[in-house]
């Protein structure tokens, strides 16, 4: 022992004059750090209830509970996370995975109670003192638990695509598809939004597993046109995909396409194994479009003898005659249709109802009739000179091309309209080397056509003139040409709160001359085959049906579906209409089977 060691500890007194460590009011003085992982905050209006937080929680601390006010919102499951603070470990994985970035944490941390059953709350719904706390943990910029960007799709470059009818989209490779499928969070919100309620997460899962046969089976449960929908579906599923809120939505359409592309048509019979037990009843389907063929498929599966009446020489309806083959090649459409036909569905081509066979006859000869003749008549522009021979309809141009005929559009074309048909007509015209101008009443951002379509048509060299209102068609100097007088429009806000209206500016009129003008401003239905009395009985308004439950009309035997019976007028809705009508017809003809339920 030496003296130094004995004295050294007395140094401790020096500390008596230093600032003490002790915090005076410990519960007040020091809030959690700005990024502290404290109690949860959920912005319930932003949350879509995808359940990813529930999925990732290793402690099963999060329940998804129904909150009435959010049910039925577009792209919202109506569920909200409910936290069990007898389980939560404040790891923050739920915040990290939150697809909508609605979930975060506050920096509050004290919750004391004598009752162990109170530590539950639905964040953002139940009133908690920390709900408005601005601090707390949030996911850092640049930190992701799933890839936010989608796998780039390879496309034909615009300069090549414009000169051929080859399919523009090349499709994913298997490896790319697996990566893209990996991004799915399997919430199933898309299933509710998809008109056909396809089992999207399940078939995406089958891609991850590389099990395309299972994927195909899953798709056929709800949609007998997977090859078609995998290419041209309006994919409302992608618009609600939660992954798309912060990043890009999962490329559901391209994944669907991959499954079909991976399976050879000759294997369909074996994989789908649709066994048919005839039940002796006969159904007539009018129109071999997606709606009619879908109904035919599901009815056939239930054992009905199905006859499809089609006015054209091939099946497919708008898919064949309205969609150009660079978007939907014929053999892919045939892949879907051929399988349906292979199950024993009879199609009577070139048979127009009302002309070749009376509608009443069908009612008499069949146990039920499903009508799905769609919208096949181009709408009129309602301007003077519209009947000029150089004014063509978009539908007609597309049908001519589909049938291999020269549409005869010339080299300088104006397309009127902003829908998909207008875009298709414009792009088809480009493929016939025409110089294309698209005239649209409103702004480009308001075009009803797919954003992709608009973008691609611009890429391919179509010029879009927005806020252009056609006023009159006038004859040109040459008979091979036609002139259009149009005026610029200003967008005027609707005082009633509707969308802004274009108003013609009389002082800014133009007259341009074209080889032809393609009008594509919409279509109406052709219901001439139905007698006038029946028109009334069906309560048809503006050429459209409003079917009841299970697509049932007021006429006992008649079910309707497709573009003339729904508001969305797209293929996938028609497919669901057909499927749903098939359910309805089965319920109608075979009520005994449903009585128990």
């Amino acid at each position: 022992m030496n003296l130094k060691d004995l004295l050294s500890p007395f140094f401790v007194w020096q500390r008596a004059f230093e600032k003490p460590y002790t915090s005076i009011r410990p519960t007040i003085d020091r809030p959690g750090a700005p990024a502290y992982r404290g109690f949860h905050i959920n912005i319930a209006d932003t949350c879509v209830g995808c359940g990813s937080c529930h999925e990732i929680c290793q402690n099963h601390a999060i329940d998804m509970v129904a909150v009435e006010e959010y049910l039925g919102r577009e792209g919202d499951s109506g569920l909200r996370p409910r936290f069990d603070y007898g389980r939560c470990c404040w790891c923050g994985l739920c915040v990290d995975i939150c697809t909508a970035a609605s979930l975060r944490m506050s920096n509050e941390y004290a919750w004391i109670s004598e009752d162990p059953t109170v530590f539950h709350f639905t964040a953002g719904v139940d009133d908690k003192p920390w709900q408005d706390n601005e601090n707390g943990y949030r996911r850092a910029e640049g930190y992701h638990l799933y890839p936010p960007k989608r796998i780039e799709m390879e496309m034909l470059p615009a300069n090549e695509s414009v000169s051929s009818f080859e399919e523009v989209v090349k499709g994913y490779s298997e490896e790319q598809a697996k990566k893209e499928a990996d991004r799915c969070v399997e919430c199933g919100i898309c299933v509710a939004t998809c008109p056909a309620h396809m089992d999207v997460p399940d078939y995406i899962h089958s891609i991850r597993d590389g099990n395309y046969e299972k994927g195909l089976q899953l798709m056929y449960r709800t949609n007998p046109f997977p090859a078609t929908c995998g290419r041209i579906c309006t994919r409302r599923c992608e618009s609600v995909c939660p992954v798309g809120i912060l990043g890009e939505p999962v490329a559901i359409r391209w994944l669907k396409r991959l499954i079909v592309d991976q399976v050879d048509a000759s294997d369909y019979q074996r994989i789908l194994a649709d066994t048919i037990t005839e039940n002796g009843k006969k159904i007539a389907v009018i129109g071999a479009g997606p709606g009619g063929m879908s109904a035919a498929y599901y009815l056939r599966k239930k054992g009905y003898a199905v006859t499809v009446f089609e006015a054209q020489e091939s099946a497919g309806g708008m898919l064949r005659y309205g969609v150009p083959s660079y978007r939907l090649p014929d053999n892919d459409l045939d892949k879907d249709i051929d399988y349906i036909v292979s199950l024993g569905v009879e199609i009577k081509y070139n048979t127009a109802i009302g002309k070749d066979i009376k509608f009443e006859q069908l009612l008499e000869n069949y146990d039920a009739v499903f009508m799905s003749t769609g919208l096949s008549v181009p709408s009129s522009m309602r301007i003077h000179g519209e009947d000029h021979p150089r004014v063509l309809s978009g539908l007609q141009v597309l049908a001519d091309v589909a049938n291999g005929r020269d549409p005869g559009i010339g080299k300088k074309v104006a397309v009127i309209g902003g829908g998909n048909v207008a875009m298709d007509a414009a792009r088809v015209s480009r493929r016939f080397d025409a110089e294309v101008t698209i005239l649209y009443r409103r702004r480009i951002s308001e075009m009803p056509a797919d954003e992709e379509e608009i973008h691609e048509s611009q890429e391919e060299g179509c010029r879009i003139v927005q806020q252009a209102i056609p006023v009159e068609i006038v004859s040109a100097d040459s008979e091979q040409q036609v002139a259009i007088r149009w005026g610029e429009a200003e967008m005027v806000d609707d005082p009633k709160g509707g969308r802004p209206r274009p108003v013609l500016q009389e002082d800014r009129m133009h007259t341009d001359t074209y080889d032809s003008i393609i009008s594509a401003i919409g279509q109406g239905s052709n219901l001439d085959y139905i007698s006038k009395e029946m028109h009334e009985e069906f309560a048809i308004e503006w050429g459209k049906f409003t079917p009841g439950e299970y697509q049932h009309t007021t006429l006992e035997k008649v079910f309707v579906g497709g573009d003339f019976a729904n508001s969305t007028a797209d293929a996938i809705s028609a497919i669901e209409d057909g499927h749903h009508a098939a359910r309805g017809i089965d319920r109608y003809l075979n009520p005994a089977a449903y009585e128990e339920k």
Partner: protein
Amino acid sequence: MKLPFGRTTSSPISTGHSASLDFAQPEPVDLASGKYVKLWQGPQHPGITGNMSLELTLDGDTIIDCKTHVGYLHRGFEKLMERRSFIQNFTVVCRIAVPEPTFNEYLYSHAVEEISGIEIPERATWLRTMNLEMMRLASFLMWIGGQGGAFGQYTVANWTLAYRDYVLDLFEEMTGARIYHMYIVPGGVRAGLPDGFEGRAREIMDGAEKLLDQIERVMFNNTVFKARSKGLAIIPPEMIDPYGIVGPNARACGVKRDLRKDEPYLAYDQLDFDIVTGTDSDAYERAYLRLQETRQCISLIRQCLDRMPMDGAFQADMPNVLHWKVPAGETYVKAECTRGEYGYYMVTDGSELVRRVHVRGPSYTHAIAVMERLAVGNNIADIAGMMVSLHTYPPEIER
């Protein structure tokens, strides 16, 4: 008197063991003779580090047999991990060693990354290195307090535990939590440094340096501390390998082994530091060595702050963790924690769940085989100080 292992009470450890140490268990004593007393120390005992118990057989106040009992903190982590996904596990592992969770996070993440071939960005490497060193600093500060407390120096315990809290404040700022940071995640880290962190960290490092100087004067130069710790629980060099002794416990007898230098991981090959070794291998030497390593920590944290890239990615490209399948593989990764080699052995089978994880904590040997051996022949009053001196954390034994 004659004791098991052929030692006498006057010289606690004979240093003449050859490589073939006798690991035989001591013969049970005849309790009925009334000559011996059986005494349980722990699990409820303030002098026990963590939650374990020692079954002591005493002759007077001299320990003649010591049996350790663990399992009070057993939660079955290895089983739980087998039924949680790869991302979920990273939140579980930190609970394995409560005072030092970060090493678990790092090693678990590193094992997953190694098997799945993920390369983490440079910034994440530095953030991880600094995180680990901050953890080491906090852990050593707590340990110094524990060692002081075990020998009656509560002043030092008050200083270091309070100061450790400042380091925890830094953690809170950086990671969002005080104890279970859950910051190092497979693929990188969860966030960069918050604004102004560097300045505050440097301030706290300066203070820590000053504190350590004071502690050296008050605790290490203290006659009482010296008297009680010098010559206590000497680990002879021959024991090192047969008993699997690692870390400061091994370095204190001159064994120059430190994973940070021997098999550098993260950014340690770019940092400037030396392995600290000692010679005497007693409780005092180990304590002093740890004090020096604490100083080293401060220097390493400063170096990290100096050299760390302040922007750029901190997370590698990750698959969707909700259905993350790690390819089949097997690996053993290790890091130098405050107690020595901490390791994760991981076997995967290509599914979404891990097949097997084994966590190797240094306390596994230090607190059982080594402790049982060193305790014999010592005074019961020194048991607490001895346990702390071996720096054992029971939760990493039983997991």
